């Protein structure tokens, strides 16, 4: 046991050192890619909180992502001298506020209705964001908002500083989301996915529990959106609220594996890798992406995580057989 712990600590420290040194090794471009990867991982994980752990599929999760982005961008535009952390906080709070407003409506439903209701609200928000161009900048979005300094320089001119900030916040988010799955509440969440009726008969209130999960999920999506806006110094309707932004985490989660906590992260990694690679070799991003989706569904219905765990099982059973 003790041995295990020290190994763990060593691994953690090694990981931290690696992450700290990373930008100096791989350069700005790949550093930005790592930030984007971390952002989308948090976004996908926040969706999986609903989908994988509570069984609620949302076709409008971009709403919270976008609210996070707009909240932060507007705050930085209108409040002079606002620091980074409060700005991200305002973004997350905006997303949470939206979730609180929607929750009484959406917790009543599940399944297709839940997905479609979110499609509707997501689209509504998208169109409204375009219409309120005086506030949101319409198609242009809000760009070039002042970037607060974290240490000495402004964040926008120092991608490395931004990297550290983003990685700390996002790492914290991932840890928190992971932690939630380990709490009693996380257990109830999984219970709802498996058998909402039984949860009800055990004395838990299903709608209220769903609402809390919903708000939490929105909170993390909001943070992801906020950091996304900061990383690009731009928040736009299409880029943050568009339909694709709602489907992105779903597909990434699907590729990675819905059931497991780390599946979505794997999915995002694959997604980003493909995105980076495809563009180098072919212009037919659509073709490659489409074929991959088809292949994953046909041959890896449980996603990469499912595939890996079944592979591990097989290996394990083989080694067991060898032993006996």
């Amino acid at each position, binding site marked *: 046991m003790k041995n295990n712990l020290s190994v763990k600590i060593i691994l953690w420290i090694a990981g931290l050192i690696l992450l700290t040194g990373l930008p100096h090794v791989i350069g700005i471009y790949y550093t930005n890619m790592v930030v984007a990867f971390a952002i989308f991982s948090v976004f996908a994980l926040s969706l999986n909180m609903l989908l994988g752990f509570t069984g609620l599929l949302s076709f409008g999760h971009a709403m919270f992502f976008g609210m996070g982005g707009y909240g932060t961008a507007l705050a930085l535009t209108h409040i002079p001298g606002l620091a980074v952390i409060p700005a991200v906080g305002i973004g997350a709070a905006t997303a949470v506020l939206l979730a609180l407003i929607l929750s009484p409506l959406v917790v009543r439903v599940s399944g297709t209705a839940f997905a479609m209701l979110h499609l509707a609200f997501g689209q509504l928000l998208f169109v409204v964001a*375009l219409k309120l161009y005086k506030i949101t900048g319409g198609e242009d979005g809000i760009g070039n908002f002042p970037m607060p300094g974290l240490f000495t320089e402004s964040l926008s001119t120092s991608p490395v500083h931004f990297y550290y900030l983003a990685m700390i916040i996002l790492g914290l988010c991932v840890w928190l989301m992971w932690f939630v799955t380990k709490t009693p509440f996380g257990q109830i969440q999984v219970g709802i996915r498996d058998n909402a009726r039984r949860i009800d008969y055990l004395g838990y209130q299903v709608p209220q529990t769903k609402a809390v999960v919903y708000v939490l999920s929105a909170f993390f999506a909001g943070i992801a959106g906020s950091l996304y806006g900061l990383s690009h110094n731009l928040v736009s309707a299409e880029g943050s609220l568009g339909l694709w932004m709602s489907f992105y985490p779903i597909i990434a989660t699907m590729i990675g594996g819905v059931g497991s906590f780390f599946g979505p992260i794997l999915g995002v990694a694959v997604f980003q890798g493909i995105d980076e690679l495809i563009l180098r070799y072919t*212009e037919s991003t659509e073709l490659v992406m489409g074929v991959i989706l088809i292949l994953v569904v046909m041959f890896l219905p449980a996603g990469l995580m499912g595939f890996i765990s079944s592979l591990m099982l097989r290996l394990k059973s083989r080694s067991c057989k060898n032993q006996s």
Partner: protein
Amino acid sequence: MKRSSVGFLSVFLAFVVGSVVLFNSPAVFAAKPEKNVKAIKPVASFDVKKMADMSDFDPSNPITPSGDTIKIAVVAAFSGPSAYNGQIYYAMVQWVAHDINKRGGILVDGKKKLIEVIKADHQSKVDQCKKVTERMALQEKVHFFWGTDGSHFMKIINDTARKYKIIAINATCMSDDLQNATNFSPYAFHATFSTEMVARGMAYYYGQIRKKEKKFYILNQDYAFGRQFAEDFKKGLQEYHPQAQLVGEDFHKLFLTDYAPYLTKIQASGAEVIFTGDWLPDAGNLLKQARQMGIMLPFANVYVDEPNYLNETGVEGTKGLTNISAYYDSTPFFKTKEHIQMYTTWKQQQAKWKELPYSSIAFQHFTANAAAWVMTTYWAMSVLERAGSTDPDKIIKVWENDSFEYINGKVVKMRSCDHKAIMDLGVTEYVPPEQQKVSMNIEPFYWFKNASYTGPVYKVPAEKVLPWMDQNLDRCKGKNGWGE
């Protein structure tokens, strides 16, 4: 209606129609040179004689050099609904690259370097645009951005250009606010015309040259560019056409499916001209559906010039459209040997292109906006050549205040304080093939058989349509419209 009044009306109508036909005939109005206007003297010009043999150029299979090259990233949509735009731009820039590469490249920093053109797909999404420009800057280490369709994308290109000190050539995007006090970037050059120039130019044409229609309806796409365009046109009308009346103003969403409700509204408003800044595919669909509904009103436009759409709509449907392009100078088009040489080289070459979209009639003629894009690119390369370095600061120094003569004689000047191009504009009216010989003075004396196209071109002098200057921009404070 009483019999007598019918009689009167028909006589009146005959008179009106007769006079319209009479005064409309190109002989009366064609290209009366304006006097007392300031002409721009070219510092450099495009020399067709130096042009390389282009007989092996095919935009579908461009020869792309690698190694130590001058890199131009064409930032445009290569996928999504506007993918076509990217393909057009790419071909135009490739032409220039091919030509210069065959000449041996450009001498920069003491070494002759070839030009490498890279596709940068912004997928019509701002975030993707940000991503792809960053990659072009950091990974491909390009020297030039070349863009693009949509002011929101150009803004991002300019931002990235400023951040990584890359020259951004704006060859196609018209928004005026790109180079205003907040958005100005010394690395960005607005080398084409801008919304206010076009809108005021159109107003000038209707108020000062044509002087017929008085009722205008504005129909634009519902985003920053469309709204700005509408504002500018209203401003232009006040300035150059005070009797004009705006009978309606609408903004439709991008990539709209059904224009009928708008068109019905326009019809009911009694409008005589529809002013639109729509680009493809919206522009084409708008025209098509209007004609299908029997609405034959003229469109005053910038982008309703795509030959495929025009052909589809037919001669009748396209008659009377008025178009402004950044290329037109005057009629007839081919006044010099050089111009004809350039034109025929292109045309002969295009006939060999077998793959879509380059084999389609859209690429048949070297004219209009597409020709302007080629010329703008030559201009930028000429600046680079004269700067003799890829150092952006040296390029900026040469380009500021530079002026360049296109193959057709049009001269464009780069205003130094805010990097906006000053130029005369040509408003053209689309006429049926048999009348096209006014503009098309070489065989077969018409542009397209199945569509109305460029007829007489009316020049709007540069000083009437000087690009808007933001006086809040420090560099421009106290300067006149010429930046002097």
